[in-house]
């Protein structure tokens, strides 16, 4: 296929061709950036919590007198534990996707000089790591002697803790974390075990805190650790257990208020946590579909016009020996050229828009592989859109040439 005659024909329709080029360029720029935003939302939703989500539920009670905390804990653990289908009940401060319960800045030294970030702390009573289903990769799980009471403030003065692999690397890059100590204020932590994953409660992609920056502090239940419970149940029974737990709690803990917002199964809490991400991804997908649709319609409209305008020329070409395939390929080549110009401009615009978004909205840099994918999508779209009008052009009979000359 010769490109030169196509180009010189386009010269006659500079303005219309320029408009399509600009439309394709803008579509390419928006497509790449929106696609990247969708991908980053979807990848955020893949967050590994490190716990057996399908077996776990979280319950939060509020409004009780702190003086009765021990009594309340005993009543709830016994009462919920007796429900059919429940495997165990533990007092825990929060769960992944649950309310944010404790973020503490930590340092490697007691003097507080070597600051290493603000991880989230999980506090739980004996058996909690096993109930969560944490996977140990080094060291040991806390034994009965490691669970201590909180005397003052929120934490035991000194405790033997579990940390995640990621956070261990953060504290001591390339070293073995077992047996090492770190501090938050006057409270000391000694690492006895490293777990594969345990995600933070409310992960914020753009925050300073990494998704797995967590520490598990073995604690005996009692103030301030009260009113928040982890239920482990048979996955098939979990939904029923969480519903029935409300009636059981109304009976055994009438003095406390059941928090309907925060108390739910982990799969539900997870879904709710990502609801905005999912909604935004859905919206972006909708925009992309509408955008590609509008662009395709624009191409169809303009090519149809060109075909109608050039009926006579097509007829002449057919009369002097061009095949249907030649006519078809002519319009396909023309579209390919226009879309290619659009893509060249669009790639530049995509990078420019991304730079702008990076500045205004702090989104990350657009990975370069989005550009060829976006270009390919638009080439395909252009060829699909042009097919109808091009086939109509190919169907123009040579006899048209003999009329009206």
């Amino acid at each position, binding site marked *: 296929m010769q490109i030169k005659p196509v180009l010189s024909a386009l010269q006659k329709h500079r*303005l*219309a061709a320029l*408009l*399509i080029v*600009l*439309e394709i360029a*803008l*579509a390419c*720029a*928006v497509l790449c950036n*929106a696609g990247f*935003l969708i991908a980053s939302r979807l990848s955020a939703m893949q967050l590994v919590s490190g716990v057996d989500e399908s077996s776990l539920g979280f319950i939060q009670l*509020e*409004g009780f*007198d*702190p003086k009765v905390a021990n009594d309340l804990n005993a009543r709830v653990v016994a009462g919920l534990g007796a429900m059919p289908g429940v495997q165990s009940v533990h007092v825990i401060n929060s769960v992944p996707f649950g309310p944010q319960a404790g973020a503490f800045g930590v340092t490697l030294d007691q003097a507080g000089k070597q600051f290493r970030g603000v991880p989230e702390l999980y506090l739980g009573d004996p058996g909690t790591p096993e109930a969560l289903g944490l996977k140990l990769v080094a060291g040991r799980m806390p034994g009965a002697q490691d669970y201590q009471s909180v005397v003052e*403030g*929120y934490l035991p003065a000194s405790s033997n803790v579990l940390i995640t692999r990621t956070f261990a690397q953060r504290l001591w890059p390339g070293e073995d974390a077992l047996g090492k100590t770190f501090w938050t*204020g006057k409270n000391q932590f000694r690492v006895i075990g490293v777990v594969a994953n345990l995600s933070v409660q409310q992960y*914020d992609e*753009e*925050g300073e805190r990494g998704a797995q920056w967590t520490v598990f502090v073995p604690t005996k239940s009692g103030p*301030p650790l009260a009113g928040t419970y982890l239920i482990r149940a048979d996955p098939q029974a979990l939904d029923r257990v969480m519903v029935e737990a409300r009636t059981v709690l109304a009976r055994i803990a009438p003095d406390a*208020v059941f*928090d309907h917002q925060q108390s739910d199964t982990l799969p539900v809490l997870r879904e*709710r946590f990502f*609801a*905005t991400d999912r*909604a*935004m991804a859905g*919206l*972006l997908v909708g*925009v992309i579909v*509408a*955008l590609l649709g*509008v*662009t395709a*319609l*624009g191409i*169809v*409209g*303009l090519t*149809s*016009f*060109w075909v*109608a*305008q050039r009926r006579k020329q097509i007829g002449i070409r057919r009369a002097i020996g061009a095949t249907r395939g030649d006519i078809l390929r002519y319009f396909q080549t023309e579209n390919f050229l226009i879309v290619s110009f659009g893509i060249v401009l669009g790639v530049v615009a995509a990078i420019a*828009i991304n730079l702008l*978004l990076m500045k*205004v*909205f*702090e989104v990350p840099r657009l990975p370069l592989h989005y550009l060829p994918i976006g270009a390919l999508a638009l080439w395909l779209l252009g060829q699909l859109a042009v097919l109808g009008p091009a086939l109509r052009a190919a169907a123009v009979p040579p006899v048209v040439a003999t009329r009206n000359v």
Partner: protein
Amino acid sequence: MFGYYLDLALRSLRRNRVLTALMVLAIAVGIGAAMTTLTVMHILSGNPLPGRSAQLFYAQVDGDPMPHGGNHREPPDMLDYQSATDLWTAHRADRQALIVDSQLKATAPQSNKPALMLTMLATTTDFFPMFAVPFQYGGAWTAQDDTQRARVAVISANLNDKLFGGENSVGRTLRLRDSDVRIVGVLKPWRPAPQFYTVAGGRFANGDTAGYFGRPEDVFVPFRSALEINDGAFQPFNCWGQPSAPGHLQNAPCNWIGLWVELGSHAKVAAYREFLDHYAQQQKALGRFQHAETRLRDLMGWLDFNHAVPRNARLQTWLAFAFLGICLFNTVGLLLAKFLRRAGEFGVRRALGASRRAVFAQCVAEAALIGFIGGVGGWLLSLLGLWLVRRQPTPYADLAHLDGGMFFLTFALAVVVSVLAGALPALRASRVPPALQLKVL
């Protein structure tokens, strides 16, 4: 003449229905997307107290002694107890209100409704007139109630409906944790957007500020009474040391209280700024403060500083306008195709004596008509879009409605956009040389 052009436009639109439908659809979709996001932005970036906001100021001093990098540092978003009460008791402004939120359990002793967890706003009596809070029954408590730590409360319409079935509950008793308080006022439904008086910490929120658009508290209690009633349940904004008793922050090294002041004139604003600076200098001299920075931002300035418009909403607006741009290019292309196809017709008109301007006007009239029809479609689509927004899991979802101004803006935007889109093709059409076209006929 305009009527004639409109008639021509209608005929022309009817002649090529598919092309017309494509153009109307493109404009409708673009306008629908743009207006949906514009309406949301309009709601989110609106002034919650038009007319009064310029007289309301948020006062900040810096009670946090921790050293931070940089020469110029922002004071924390809230005040420590000592600074807050010092500034409030000085009564240097026309009106002043302390603000702190906390959670507590509430029951209505006479009813058998289950206990509720509520957010209680601890504030002072000026809060109600300052922020033009509307009352349905009763009114605010008195200044005397503030100083005497009276056990009184104002409740929201929502709570009044829940506990008392919407009756006049003034004089009835509400149990807040272990204290009985007498209801002195019931608010009308009140939904400032954002809930501006508790806005703080926006610069640490990474753009996720949808929470500012939640509903106001359900119960309002005099500041000092509230600190006693809900002792042990107060959350700090930030601390520079561990509080000795969790939830009791009166002597704790923490910032946790907001202070709003009303200042009626520029002179008063200047005087108050000076007062704040003087206070900070004095506290620094006494050794309680390390930093003498102060701030006094007006309401809109404070919202702006906190980036109150959520980033998702701003991103969606950008996206919608890029989309409208694509629809616009599309329409320009299609109009160009349409007008140039009728070159013969325009040639005849020109040959019969129509001026270039007349042909131009005819084409623009046609574009405007397409814009208007597209505007109707865009209006319907933006109603659909706002319905979708209302189904989103965001706190401001219930606010997303099209108001009168935005309704007219929809049509104005549609017509302006399509006239702009039509201008270039119309110009080309009006330049059609009559002779050349007539030769072909």
